[in-house]
């Protein structure tokens, strides 16, 4: 029995080599996840959240280089493993639910067969009948009729395909699941069902789940912790209720007040002006200062230290206090 966090990311930094130079896609990212806990990794596109996910899965492209840090999964540093050893972890210990829109399923194979192969490829010694029975169980678990195993991906609707992708991620019983925008392309009623299913699977299996999303409302409903990323860095981290209830970082607060909601009083939307920075030449000091209303000379010159409140922190020289946060 392993105690302590199931996943510990420590000081992770990685770069991509491109023609224009070196992109500092992820810098000094640290977080921990206990068994059964869920974390929302939020931020705009290009903030580095998918790079973190790909790094955890050992699926970085050739031009990527991890410059610092550790990714410790159940006591083993994944970054020290070679490709052969990594294969024992990927999918078996840590698995990813991709966006169904990204055509993860091979169109010329039956959906069930693809999952059977995934199970067999990862060293489960099962007879064909046993493997099929396991897939039938997984299908039932994600709300698909087991008969659908013998259908082809094009016969599935978007929601069914996303469920099949979740079944595939669960097939080797991982301890950590990374869900990359698992419901972004789906309609709300199907999104609601899939998020509820993921949540109950997480509870039943005591799995840790990382949700990568830009949807603050989804994060509010399904996660225990939130990590807000900006320009490759974590800028705020803490329990979801605290971070969204009283954000410390002006970026978190800005993201929240630009988010439309159907419930409650209609409050005016505000826009985060400007665009996220270019990570080949990131701005000096706090990377958010060009878009921040309360930026001072200090923000322009020095990266901010962590400001603490209760269990949560933000990297900001001028954290918001409870009264001037625009939450709610």
């Amino acid at each position, binding site marked *: 029995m392993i105690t302590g966090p199931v996943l510990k990311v420590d000081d992770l930094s990685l770069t991509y080599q491109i023609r224009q130079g070196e992109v500092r896609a992820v810098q000094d990212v640290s977080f921990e996840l206990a068994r059964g806990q869920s974390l929302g990794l939020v931020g*705009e*596109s290009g903030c580095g959240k998918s790079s973190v996910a790909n790094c955890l899965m050992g699926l970085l492209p050739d031009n990527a280089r991890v410059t610092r840090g550790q990714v410790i999964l159940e006591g083993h540093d994944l970054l020290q493993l070679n490709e052969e050893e990594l294969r024992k972890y990927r999918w078996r210990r840590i698995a990813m639910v991709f966006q169904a829109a990204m055509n993860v399923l091979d169109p010329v194979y039956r959906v069930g067969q693809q999952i059977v192969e995934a199970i067999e490829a990862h060293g489960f010694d099962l007879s064909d009948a046993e493997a099929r029975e396991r897939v039938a169980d997984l299908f039932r678990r994600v709300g698909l009729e087991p008969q659908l195993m013998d259908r082809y991906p094009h016969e599935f*609707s*978007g*929601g069914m395909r996303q469920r099949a992708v979740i079944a595939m991620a669960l097939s080797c019983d991982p301890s950590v699941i990374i869900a990359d925008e698992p419901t972004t392309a789906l*309609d*709300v*009623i*199907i*999104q*609601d*069902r899939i*998020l*509820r299913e993921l949540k109950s699977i997480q509870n039943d299996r005591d799995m840790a789940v990382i949700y990568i999303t*830009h*949807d*603050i*409302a*989804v994060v*509010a*409903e399904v996660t225990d912790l939130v990590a807000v990323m900006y320009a490759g860095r974590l800028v705020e981290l803490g329990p*979801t*209720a605290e971070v*969204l*209830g009283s954000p410390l970082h002006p970026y978190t607060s*800005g*993201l*929240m007040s*630009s*988010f*439309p*909601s*159907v*419930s*409650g009083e*209609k409050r005016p*939307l*505000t*826009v*985060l002006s400007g*665009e996220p920075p270019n990570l080949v030449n990131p701005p000096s000091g706090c990377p958010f200062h060009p878009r921040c209303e309360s930026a001072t000379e200090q923000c322009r010159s020095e990266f901010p230290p962590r400001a603490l409140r209760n269990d949560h922190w933000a990297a900001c020289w001028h954290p918001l206090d409870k009264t001037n946060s625009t939450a*709610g």
Partner: protein
Amino acid sequence: MELRLTETQTHPEVGEDPGPLVEVSGLTKRFPVSKGFFRKPTSFIHAVDAVSFTLGRGESLGMVGESGCGKTTIGKLLVRLLDPDEGQMLYRIAEEAGDASAVSVVDPATISGKEMRDFRRNVQMIFQDPYESMNPRRTLFDIISEPLSVQKIGNLMERIERTAEMLSLVGLTPASDFLLRHPHELSGGQRQRVAIARALVIRPQFVVADEPTSMLDVSSRTGIMLLMQQLARDFGISYLYVTHDLAVARYMCDRIAVMYLGKIVELAETEELLRNPLHPYTRALLSAVPVPDPGHRRAPPDIRGDLTRSLDPPARCRFYDRCPIATDNCLNSPHPETEEKSPGHLVACYEA
């Protein structure tokens, strides 16, 4: 097809109401589905089925529903990217923008040639995907000024001027920096700003916006929403805003129509619809939207089964198979007629 000439109505008395900008009645579009390449079509998808609504001058009407409900098809019919099978669309287009005292009445399904070109000067569309809707080899000037050259408006200098003016209006400043750029140099949000500039450069009176923000990031999405509202106010534009996102519709639309399998099941003013939804489908949709408040516990939406296609639907209520409150009457009766339950609040349901 019956050929109808456009007629001009004149309203000399100031203040007389010439009627809504768009009046749609019994609009129907079916797509044939054949089993096999050379076979005759054997069944039809009823994408839009006898839909009626009006859209006022300066109004923004939301068409909301799940994928496959027919909302995009309505948008395409309204700008005549598709031809309807049945029904009528009447546009009352002001002879001069901003002055509704003289309007010409047009049914886009019955016109062609010069009339069609005049129609397109007043009715434009913004597409969902800012990556697919632009020719990557052309400059922003080419892209934005194209409607001007199609409409033969202005000479080159004037077109450059108007393009630059549009670029500044949509927030791509300084305009001179953007005129000769190509779409690939822009972010998704910036591209959608270009799409808006292209749609509005000829000052249309009516714009169909098909999910213009659904491919964008949170922050650029809000920027585009506020920009579209601002331009609607400044230029007196009416929108048909097609979206699956009720939260976006809340901010963009004066009224919202909820569609289910080709039918409008409920239509009301936005806040009335959100506070007092009458149709069981509207209620299910609303209760499925995540709430950005970590303390809130949301009950699952009350709806059965999965979304189907409107392939040769039976005569009964389209929502019957998924409805939590359906009765035997719903099973044995035709799809319910739309009723006005309270002023301006329309719903098509026997049990509402």
